[in-house]
């Protein structure tokens, strides 16, 4: 990755490389914005590179230079989202794709890794993540440490890349991808209502889920508008629920299921579950693939086709 970045910067192919750098703890990585060849050594790639970097591209939309960005499979769907929304121009992006065997849930890892530990190297086997530290090799069992979104990965290999930094990884057949959604669907209405009320009650309305979302790129979000006032600023269950439902509907058919909203949520609201419910329903209604999997397949709710079902006719 460092070599690719150096080469792109050296040959003035790009003006910026967006990748990962080590964070303040072993299980955190931080986005790195590398503009000079010499800084490329800061870049890292390890099983903690969970965050999606694609959305940073929109900050460079109007820059004269090209930008290179590191994407995993799930992040590549986010990039497709941005391309389809005209927020990023394909010709101004160099996509460095990393086929990925799954990433680690930082919250699970934090329990196992002592503060101040430095990671020297990492590898992934079928059953565990192996981390080389100064004090020896540390093993994180895959079952415990794997990020929830990686349990059923539709695109281990990026759907879109100019260069791939590793061998392609084949997708496993993901039959059970919406098992949790089905579980919640099977509950009686009162239980579902109580479940979501309980979560929405705790929402801080910090809007981190929105800010991190690759499908949320409006210039002025409806939740920030005061005239008309779509959602009041009051912090209560009613307004919180309105916020979450509007958010879910605004990304309906566009959510790429990257799970970043849920990761960013400081109070652990299962936002991905809500999004997956919508994705599942739209897939069943319109027979589309997960949004972002195909550059030529536009969002189901953002199209007009004469063959669309028209139950009012």
């Amino acid at each position, binding site marked *: 990755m460092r070599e690719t970045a150096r080469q792109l910067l050296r040959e003035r192919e790009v003006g910026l490389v967006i990748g990962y750098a080590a964070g303040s703890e072993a299980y955190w990585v931080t986005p790195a914005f590398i503009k000079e060849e010499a800084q490329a050594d800061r870049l890292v790639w390890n099983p903690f590179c969970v965050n999606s970097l694609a959305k940073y591209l929109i900050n460079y939309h109007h820059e004269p230079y090209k930008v290179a960005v590191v994407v995993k499979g799930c992040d590549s769907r986010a990039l497709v989202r941005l391309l389809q929304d*005209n*927020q990023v121009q394909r010709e101004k992006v160099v996509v460095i794709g990393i086929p990925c065997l799954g990433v680690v849930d930082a919250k699970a890892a934090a329990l196992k890794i002592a503060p101040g530990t430095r990671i020297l190297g990492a590898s992934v086997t079928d059953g565990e993540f192996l981390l080389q530290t100064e004090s020896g090799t540390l093993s994180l069992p895959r079952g415990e440490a794997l990020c929830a979104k990686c349990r059923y990965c539709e695109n281990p290999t990026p759907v879109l890349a100019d260069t791939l930094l590793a061998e392609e990884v084949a997708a496993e057949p993901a039959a059970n991808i919406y098992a949790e959604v089905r579980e919640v669907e099977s509950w009686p209405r009162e239980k579902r209502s109580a479940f979501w009320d309980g979560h929405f009650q705790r929402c801080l309305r910090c809007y981190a889920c929105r800010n991190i979302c690759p499908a949320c790129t*409006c*210039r*002025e979000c*409806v939740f920030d508008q005061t005239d008309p*006032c779509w959602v009041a600023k009051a912090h209560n269950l009613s307004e919180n629920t309105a916020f979450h439902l509007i958010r879910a509907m*605004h990304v309906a058919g566009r959510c790429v299921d990257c799970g970043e909203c849920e990761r960013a949520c400081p109070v652990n609201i299962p936002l991905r579950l809500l999004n997956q419910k919508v994705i599942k329903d739209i897939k069943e209604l319109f027979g589309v693939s997960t949004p972002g999997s195909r550059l030529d397949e536009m*969002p189901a709710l953002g199209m*007009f086709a004469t063959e669309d079902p028209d139950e009012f006719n």
Partner: protein
Amino acid sequence: MKRIGVFVCWCGTNIGGVVDVPQVAKAASSFPGVVLATDYKYMCSEPGQELIVQAIREHRLTRVVVAACTPRLHENTFRKTLERAGLNPYLLEIANIREQCAWAHQKQPGRATEKAISLVRRAVAKASRLEPLFASTIPVTRKALVIGGGIAGMQAALDIADAGHQVILVEREPTIGGKMAMLDKTFPTLDCSACICTPKMVAVAQHPSITLYTYAEVEKVEGYVGNFEVTIRQKARSVDHTKCTGCGTCWEKCPTRVPSEFEQGLGTRKAIYVSFPQAVPNKPVIDRRHCRYFAAGKCRVCEKVCPTGAIDYQQGDQLIKEKVGAIVMATGYDLFEWEKVYGEYGYGRYPNVITSLQFERLINASGPTGGKILRPSDGKEPQSVVFVKCVGSRDPAKGKEYCSRICCMYTAKHAHQVLEKLPGARVYVFYMDVRTAGKAYEEFYLRTLQDGAHYIRGRVSKIYPEGDRLIVRGVDTLLGRQVEVGADLVVLATAVVPSRGAAELARLVGISCDQNDFYTEAHPKLRPVEANTAGIFLAGACQGPKDIPDTVAQASAAAAKVCALFSREEMAAEPTVAQVNQFLCYGCLECQKVCPYRAIEPVTVSENAAGKKIERTVASVNSGLCQGCGACTVACKPGAINLKGFSNEQVLAEVDALCL
């Protein structure tokens, strides 16, 4: 502060019989901004409108709410009322307390009154946020396109052209005339169909203001009312019509015979052909599917015999672009394909079971038998003819639910013709009901009965061959018993369905169809000849089954509508169109993708961002194309698109008024 007047209509007993109208007015008087609330028996009447005008002047009203029937009926009426009183017409809001309240809740008057009050509260909330809107004008191209050259299309074209406008008539078959040219006689007067149809065909061809494209199809329609741009595909005729004199040598010598569409398969034509001797234009086309030269690369007989060198095997399709201001759809009908579903009638395997259109050719003096009724299997004169009505009509199980309207009368005509031409023949008509609503129709039917036709009320359950005859088994519901009738010839009155390709054409032109693919009119009673897209009009059976008088009447009506549109050089455009707030728009262009009218385009705007001049893409609405459907406003996530007259603010105020 807005000064709102509320006018609650009784609509006689339509509303007043259910809803406590004075109470609604009383409740409305307490709503914010309302300075006057009153009621009247018929608000749409002259004195009712005068009441509104006077109130606007006296109470210096700035917004008006009318609680009455659906806005589809009288919104325009009351807009004009406001205009008369000097108010902007778009400062009106209608509360529909008839269709959506009084009619729906007749059994619960108390709750209906409550609902009416809520609906008025909603309307008042919206009215206080209404802004004046101003209609812009768009230029009108005074040239009409008529699609379909049957009697409907010909009549519409002639009427528009006679009013002094240019007309383009497009017909996909090699000749105009349509189904009417195939018919023998027309009910109830029994005048010869060809004698009244072919002069019209000639009139169309000779009219200086009509440009005729036969053997051509409309390929693309862009633009909007007053400004359509149409692409017409002139299919390759393989004959240069500028050289051809129509002498007929080519089709005499052509060695290939195929079943003739015009003769409904009862006769043959050549591979180079004119559909029938009176065809317009009376010049041939080569049917490339059946032509020996096109199929096998050998023959070229027509080329050899043509005295003018008009045969052109290399001729390709031609695309013609035309600008028109209005479009008349006159695509007509086809017959229901009974062979596919009526197994009990033999799936079309018995040659002596024919459709009524085939019967028209059989009895036509210019038809394959020279007008003699001879059964197809062996050319014998039938002694017993059975007519079966409602084959595919009024049969939701196998065919269509609707009544095809014309079958009762033409079957009576056919029965009469058989009895007239074959003295001594027996005629049986199986029917469900006899529907003869029309001038002199019932009289005609009674005459057929007097002629000796046996009408049997009941459906036919089976037709099967026995020897060289057919046995028709059915039920006589009046006698309550099974009947079996021996027949030499059976004629099926098959349902009228929209002509093949009607639904695809509707999509291409941008109008809608009902569940049977008949074109939908803008309003079933008040706008029966207009499609729901502005500038597109309907004539004839493409809108629903019709006989010739109704078709001609509707065609003339459509022509009158076109002429009204063409009476001005510019027309007022509805101001209730979408508008983009370019500051909020982030250029995802989802609105463009969901717009059914292709009214949204990307434009580039420049602006300063952090001291730098940048360019970005935003959406922009073409207000001429926009029909105000609102699809884009829903697709727009940041709420950057507002539909004028239905802005986000207005709609939210309505929701608040109803729900809070």
